[in-house]
């Protein structure tokens, strides 16, 4: 159990470190393209963290939590609840991924347009532009 606890904490801690590296990229990298890459790493890490929060340790190794009887009997349903993981984080993450993809595409269009018009994606140069 202690080894499991250690490994689990290492995984979560590595996600925190990953988040921080992504935040560093968003804040400090001058190129807009690199900022977008860091943003995708950040959102993916947050999504994985949300999935980890919904994770459970089922003992012994369970059969997949699928309702096979239609309609399910009460006993079957009780077994299903004992085996399934929390569905709410998964429901939130699955929409977040697709919407994140759409938002990233929008940001890429903005960056592409900035590059086409000003010939640079460096925020230091863009902030000095006038008119």
């Amino acid at each position, binding site marked *: *159990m202690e080894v*499991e*606890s250690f490994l*689990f*904490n290492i995984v*979560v*801690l590595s996600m*925190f*470190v990953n988040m*921080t590296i992504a*935040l*560093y990229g968003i*804040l*400090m990298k001058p190129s807009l393209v690199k900022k977008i890459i860091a943003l995708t790493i950040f959102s993916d890490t947050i999504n994985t963290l949300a999935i980890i*929060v*919904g*994770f*459970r*340790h*089922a*003992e012994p190794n369970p059969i997949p939590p*699928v*309702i096979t009887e*239609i*309609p*399910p009997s*009460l006993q079957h*349903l009780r077994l*299903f*609840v004992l085996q*399934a*993981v*929390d*569905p*709410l984080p*998964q*429901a939130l993450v*699955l*929409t*977040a*991924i*697709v*919407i994140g*993809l*759409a*938002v990233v*595409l*929008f940001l*890429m*269009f*903005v960056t*592409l*347009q900035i590059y*086409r*018009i000003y010939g640079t994606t460096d925020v230091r140069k863009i902030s000095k532009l006038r008119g």
Partner: protein
Amino acid sequence: MNRILHTIIMISLILLVIGLAMVLSTGGLGFTVPPSGIRSLAIIFLNTTFNLDAKYRYISAMSPEAVTAIVWDYRGLDTLFETSVMFIAIVGALAISRGATEKLLKSFPSTQGMSLIVRTITRIAIVMILAVGGSIALHGHLTPGGGFQGGATIAVAPMLLIITFSIYLFSKMVTVYKAVTLRSVGLIGIALSAFIVLFVALIHSSSAYIFQNQPKLYSYYGLPSYIEPTVLGGTLFLFNTFETLAVAFGFAALFILFMLPEDAVRNVIMGEE
């Protein structure tokens, strides 16, 4: 000045990691190992996802797949607004690239795309991608999957087609206009599916809730959730189908606009000034 700012940000980020690690070690997530049980909220969701028991009959979503039930039934309005975020993001991208349509391609010589090997393999792969995407989307009320995942899977197909067969050939199959139209059909379908039970109830001169799927207290109308032995999933199936259309063709339109030749788009932008 820049170096000081850099140092401050570095130190604050390191402090952030240390702080988060301390929160984690003192049980900030609520646990330090994966728990053997689940939250009481999750138990409620799992218990009511498909339950014919009299106690749960009128709060059950009647779908064997709990995630899809949460996405389109328990939290249906939430998902509607998330879809509208995606809608606005795609509309914004289309507005930025206005004037750039596939008509620009006519003024440029067409290219042949990639080699025969790649094209043959892509022809085989496209069929499989579309089949898997359709399967994920249409079985969303039975197995893990649904409109978002199926649509995102199908959206890989236009990407592959554009890269291997070149944008010139692909724009003869699907234009931006057609893709946006089909995406709007999907969004209108989602909007109508939100009201479909209300329409059914109004025909019977009664009333129902918006986003209602199964019979609820004071509103005993709903689409059939299963006819032995087939699970239909009520409105979940409609939502998944239309969401697939909306997601797949929304991304297809954006991919076409992305892949337009740089010179053509640059001419449009510079011509406006």
